[in-house]
């Protein structure tokens, strides 16, 4: 359902992504691991075109992301299909929780307020925060804010959700509440690409693993291939440090 093909990206002269290609089948959970600066976040940001890449293409169903300028209507469709949850949650601080969730369904999908609200409440219940609908983001803990951010993304009914180090900014004891939400989402068959340092999550939930370093994919395959029996020396070295 998602195809990344020969994607290259430069920041001025810095070669940030080098010939990245991989496929994400429907219902799979792809975990991308690797040291800082490997390009993990950059590739995610290319998939919903928060970043523009220089060559190659990304295909989501029948929609294609290409280098260079794109029309808003195409971007809108891509970003509606591809949900994105960022490390820093980025809830809108001037809106209460429920308004955070219904803003995009109202403006982009043109849902009626009532329908958007009912839909939003369902997702809030799903992430266990139905009682916080009228709270301001600043009165929520980091873990709660991140769960609201996930609900906000799900309210757009995406076909695939990108998680960009969503637990990295959280206190250790809040990490599990976010991972639990993601795990149940995966069990329901949501297609996900997850950039994370949580190896426990990767081992129990992932179907595919990609190991990246310095802008390149070093190794990719099933959990058993990459996490249990890695072939590349660099993967073995990395895993010995994080496991």
């Amino acid at each position, binding site marked *: 359902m998602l195809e990344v093909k020969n994607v290259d990206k430069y920041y001025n002269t810095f070669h940030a992504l080098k010939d990245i290609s991989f496929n994400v089948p429907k219902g799979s959970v792809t975990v991308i691991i690797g040291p800082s600066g490997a390009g993990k976040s950059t590739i995610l940001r290319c998939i919903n075109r*928060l970043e523009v890449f220089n060559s190659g293409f990304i295909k989501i169903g029948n929609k294609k992301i290409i280098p260079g300028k794109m029309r808003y209507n195409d*971007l809108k469709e891509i*970003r509606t299909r591809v949900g994105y949850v*960022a490390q*820093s949650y980025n809830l*809108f601080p*001037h809106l209460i929780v429920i308004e955070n969730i219904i*803003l*995009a369904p109202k403006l982009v999908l043109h849902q009626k307020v009532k329908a958007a609200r009912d839909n939003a409440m369902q997702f809030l219940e799903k992430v266990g925060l139905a009682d916080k609908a009228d709270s301001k983001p600043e009165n929520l803990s980091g873990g709660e804010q991140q769960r609201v951010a996930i609900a906000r993304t799900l309210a*757009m009914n995406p076909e695939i959700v990108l998680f960009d180090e969503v637990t990295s900014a959280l206190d250790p004891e809040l990490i599990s509440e976010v991972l639990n939400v993601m795990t149940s989402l995966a069990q329901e068959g949501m297609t996900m690409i997850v950039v994370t340092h949580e190896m426990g999550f990767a081992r129990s939930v992932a179907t595919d693993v990609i190991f990246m370093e310095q802008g390149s994919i070093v190794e990719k395959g099933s959990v058993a291939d990459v996490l249990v029996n890695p072939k590349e020396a660099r993967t073995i070295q990395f895993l010995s440090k994080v496991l």
Partner: protein
Amino acid sequence: MGYVIRFGVIVENIQELLKGITITLELTLVAIVLSTLTGIIIAFISMNGNRVVKAIINGYVEIMRNIPLLVLLYFIYFGLGEISINFGSFSSIILALVLCNGAYLEEIIRAGIESVHKTQSEAGLALGLHNYQVFFRIVMPQALINVFPPIINQYIIILLSTSFASLVALDELTSTVSRLSAFSFRTFEFYIIGAVVYLVFAVIIVFVTNRIKKILRHEKITKQKEAT
């Protein structure tokens, strides 16, 4: 020391004073609304425009910031009149106030926009919003909250600057007060009343804008929650 203070003279001329106050109020409200819109729109254009557009806007702001309001007003009222572009007293002062304060407000609002973290726009874009929706629904409200104190300041400056209208034959509060005091020789009484009226209006502006800020920040909602 033969001057005896008699405020009775104010009551005798209350009709004329109220007329002047009404015009000052109209000038202030129209100028505040138009200046704010100008500031927001120019800030939007400046943030999204190319280098040429940005240079034009910077030039405009720089010109407005560096000439006295009175010179601008005289230029519009008298100068443009010479080349057959005629503005009435009311339009001239509004135009001068909006041109000048629109530039100041643009600078203030732009500072506010820059204080909103880039990840906020990204979150909006990632949800499929259009650039202008991100700007007006996500960035702008936060920007305004962040720069409320200087905006209130600018609104008060607008109120006080409406007194320049007395110099282009508009009978607003300052002009009325100065005319009445000249006729009646009750300078002390009339000018002190004029000052008090400006002061009261300034306090009202602070009060109203603070209410707006609270609404923008949802402070009411939190209070209700705390009460229950």
